[in-house]
């Protein structure tokens, strides 16, 4: 029988705050889960080993440590609570099936995010959105590219950006741009981590993030002009 202590109550006690997840950090210290506030949380290597060996309580603790970030990522990507819950469930079930194969070549949180991202992208594909694979996520169509504005008389965004307007603009980004923007600017992952998650180069991650921000600028300025007309 599987014990079922509430994972909510077990999240504390195994977290390490402030662990550096740079590539030079030893693998044992690279099991990092950064909270949305920018702090970091590491999975205890021993806990991970127990989860890999089939210890259900250890797996429940791993879930507790990562549930917030994975669920938030799913919700940010699909914008629907029920769907995000299903995707979180599927991501952790896949984790349960595959956790024994994790060898520590990358940070555990990077590996788990990659797994969750694939679950999300699969769902977007099922929904018929214009996104087939990670490769396509990284190479949006020409129609999706941000506009260039060299030499044109330009209107700068005025002051602070309205959060809700920006959230709407992010939700309307092509999925590939949305993913990079959320991972870097919202969740705070570094380009080297994103490159590992998406199996792309660091340069590609930087370039796609830049295009995502340009797209958002286009959308916000369009909204601003719209507001000025009314």
């Amino acid at each position, binding site marked *: 029988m*599987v014990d*079922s202590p*509430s*994972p*909510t109550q077990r999240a504390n006690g195994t977290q390490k705050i402030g662990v550096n997840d740079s590539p030079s950090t030893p693998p044992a210290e690279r099991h990092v889960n950064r*909270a*949305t506030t920018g702090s970091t949380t590491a999975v205890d290597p021993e806990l991970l080993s127990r989860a890999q060996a089939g210890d*259900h309580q250890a*797996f*429940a603790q791993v*879930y507790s440590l990562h*549930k*917030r*970030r994975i*669920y*938030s990522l799913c*919700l*940010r990507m699909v914008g629907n609570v029920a769907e*995000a*819950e299903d995707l*979180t*469930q599927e991501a*952790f*079930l896949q984790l*349960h099936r595959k956790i024994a194969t994790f060898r520590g070549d990358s940070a555990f949180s990077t590996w788990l995010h990659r797994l969750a991202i694939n679950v999300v992208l699969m769902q977007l594909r099922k929904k018929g959105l214009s996104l087939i694979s990670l490769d396509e996520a990284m190479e949006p169509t020409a129609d999706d590219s941000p506009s*260039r*504005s*060299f*030499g*044109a008389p*330009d*209107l*700068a*965004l005025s*002051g*602070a*950006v309205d*959060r809700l307007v*920006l*959230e709407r603009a*992010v939700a309307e980004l092509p999925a590939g741009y949305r993913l990079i*923007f*959320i991972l870097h*600017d*919202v969740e*705070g992952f570094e*380009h080297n981590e994103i490159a590992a998650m998406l199996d792309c180069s660091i*340069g590609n991650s*930087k*370039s796609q*993030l*830049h295009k995502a*921000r*340009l797209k*958002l*600028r286009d959308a*916000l300025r369009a909204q601003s002009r719209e507001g000025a007309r009314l």
Partner: protein
Amino acid sequence: MTSDPGKMSCAEFQAQLPDVIGSGVDANAHPHLKNCELCRALLADLETIAEAARQLFPGVEPPDEVWEHIESAIKKGD
């Protein structure tokens, strides 16, 4: 492409932006920006967006039912 940063075209400057932003280098100090209002406005906008992004989509906990479903599926051998 010009080798003098101060004589760069907007296209050349903007092509460098993905690498410059977030590199730790102060992009606002770039010589091209001294005389280019267009690129100054672009950089200010991109910085505003990146700054605002930190406040977006506050992280949330999944409801307890998600774990219950996961646990139930594990018990069933899914």
